[in-house]
């Protein structure tokens, strides 16, 4: 790419850049050729970066006032809400920010699923993304424990107990995780430590995620390889910056609505009751963004197999690039996949719904069917579809929608020369 030839204009700039090429990096980031047909589903990468920074900044501020001790955590949160200047604002941004973060990441993931962004040559970007998503879930879960309310305590008890399903060493691992024989102060302090650490791990992985993205460049709604830079692309700045900025502002309006007018609607009332090991809540439910996986966990009657199913449901995504055998990326040109895609979206929403309901009767039956379908989609439908599906003809380039292109640039070029 041409940006490696970049030379700063000033002498000082050249001197600095020869020693640490930060200016080359800045130049690469501003000039980065981006497909000009990206739609608004592509703005969630920038939105997610905003979410991460927001969580880190508000989280640091909260950590200055929060006390990670089983006897004082709940009280220190109330101290933040009442006596710290704008403490209520910082805490509500942080708590709702987690939900907004997951809302954005789910849109980001499902965008990738629709447009085949996980396919060659972007497998590493995708796998890094799945690791980020896993770390996000860990951070969110541990963050939810910190206020030391009833749902914090019992959520921590339920989730850590999952490890006891591991044969032979399970019980030992759970004791080790707890730092005792039940969820207690040692659990809280280590969760706080990890909750503080993980966002910075995520930040590092986000850098790798973007680095890996900048090697092949963005996928696009048409899903074909494009020449970069070319008339199919625009420089990242100002075109994508302003567009991402516009989308981010729209997102912030929704965010602000939750923070200022419905700050507790996404949380559970029981978490305003201080943790009490002697009283179990009527329903123990995780936060909404973990509900689909919670539904999968509960739909399997065996504890160990339930845990395996839940973990597989996430890890199966990591091998998705090899499960999807279709050469065509974008669902726009895959009429059958498009339908299965929307069925999967519905399936995950249904799983989320039954995850919030008691695991009994009709709800349990629905959860089981939806769980089975979830795995069927990835393990059977996707591999078979790649061979069976009759795809629509795809265009050669974004600007010249001549049909007869190929998802692979080399073949596209060959065909192009043949046409000429």
């Amino acid at each position, binding site marked *: 790419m041409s940006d490696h030839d970049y030379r700063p204009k000033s002498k000082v700039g050249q001197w600095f850049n020869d020693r640490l090429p930060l200016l080359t990096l800045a130049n690469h980031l501003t000039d980065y050729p981006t497909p000009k047909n990206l739609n608004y589903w592509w703005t969630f990468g920038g939105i997610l970066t905003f979410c991460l920074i927001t969580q880190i900044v508000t989280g640091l501020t909260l950590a200055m006032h929060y006390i990670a001790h089983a006897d004082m955590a709940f009280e220190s949160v109330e101290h933040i809400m009442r006596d710290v200047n704008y403490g*209520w604002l910082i805490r509500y941004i942080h708590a709702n920010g987690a939900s907004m973060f997951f809302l954005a990441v789910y849109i980001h993931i499902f965008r990738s699923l629709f447009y085949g962004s996980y396919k060659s040559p972007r497998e590493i970007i995708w796998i890094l993304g799945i690791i980020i998503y896993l770390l996000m879930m860990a951070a969110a879960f541990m963050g939810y424990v910190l206020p030391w309310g009833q749902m914090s305590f019992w959520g921590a008890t339920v989730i850590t107990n999952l490890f006891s399903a591991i044969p032979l060493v399970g019980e030992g691992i759970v004791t080790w995780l707890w730092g005792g024989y039940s969820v207690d102060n040692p659990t809280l302090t280590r969760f706080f430590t990890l909750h503080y650490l993980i966002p910075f791990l995520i930040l590092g992985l986000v850098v790798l995620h973007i680095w890996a993205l900048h090697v092949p460049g963005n996928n696009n709604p048409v899903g074909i390889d494009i020449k970069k830079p070319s008339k199919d692309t625009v420089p990242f700045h100002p075109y994508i910056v302003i567009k991402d*900025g516009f989308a981010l*502002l729209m997102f912030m309006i929704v965010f602000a609505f939750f923070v*200022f007018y419905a*700050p507790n609607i996404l949380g559970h009332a029981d978490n305003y009751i201080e943790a009490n090991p002697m009283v179990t809540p009527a329903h123990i439910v995780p936060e909404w963004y973990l509900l689909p996986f919670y539904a999968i966990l509960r739909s399997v009657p065996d504890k160990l197999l339930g845990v395996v199913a839940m973990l597989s449901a996430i890890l199966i995504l990591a091998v998705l690039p090899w499960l999807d055998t279709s050469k065509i990326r974008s669902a726009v040109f895959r009429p059958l996949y498009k339908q299965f895609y929307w069925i999967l979206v519905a399936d995950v929403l249904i799983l989320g719904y039954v995850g*919030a309901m008691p695991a009994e009767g009709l709800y349990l039956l629905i959860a089981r069917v939806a769980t089975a379908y979830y795995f069927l989609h990835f393990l059977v439908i996707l591999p078979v579809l790649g061979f069976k599906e009759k795809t629509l003809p795809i265009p050669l380039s974004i600007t010249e929608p001549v049909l007869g292109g190929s998802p692979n640039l080399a073949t596209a070029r060959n065909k192009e020369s043949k046409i000429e």
Partner: protein
Amino acid sequence: MKNLYKFLSIIIIIIASNSYSFAAEKVEYLKTDWSFKGLFGKFDRASLQRGYQVYTEVCASCHSMKYLSYRNLAEQGGPEFSEAQAKAIAASFEVTDGPNSDGEMFTRPGKLSDKFVMPYENVKAAQAANGGAYPPDMSVLVKARGGGVDYIYSLLQGYEEAPVGVTLDDGVYYNKYMYGNKIRMAAPLSDGLVEYGDGTNATVEQMSKDVTTFLMWSAEPHLESRHQMGFKAIVYLIILTVLVYFSMKKIWSRVESEV
């Protein structure tokens, strides 16, 4: 773009209905018009002051409010008692302080900086005095119950004769809004139980509304500034969004592509 909105709104509706699903599973709560709901919602100052009276004369004999201080009563956005009134309220309570230079604990009249005095020394003492049931701390009670203010408001008025077939143990009462309908608290309110200084008729309904308003404030003492700031923030964001939209249109007009 339109699809995006649709998708977002569907997701929000699903989330919202999920979090409400437990609260809505039983009876319909009694409704009243709360002044603090809505974009510009504010507390009814007089109702907060009456609500404090109900709390302190009725509820406080069993329920603590350990996260509130007497100074909060004079703060903006709350009952807004004058500082002199709040000082007088604080001074009417005996606060244990110490140890003094002799190593002895002593009692003194309360100050603005003191936390609300608790009716019992600890949870065990509270349970012992209430037949084993712990009267929950009321500081964040409204946020700790699924139905929120409507639930508390209804519960206070929900005492009835137990229907035929329901047997109640000693010290257990029937309340149609309570989870499982059985409650260890006797009906706390009766008409004319307190005498309001402003001449308002102290019906059970009126007292329920006043004390629930007070509990909403105690759970969310910064609700008013939250609503005010929220409105400004959202208006600001909308204006900025419109400006950025037109800038975006202008910048993208240089290339042949839709935004």
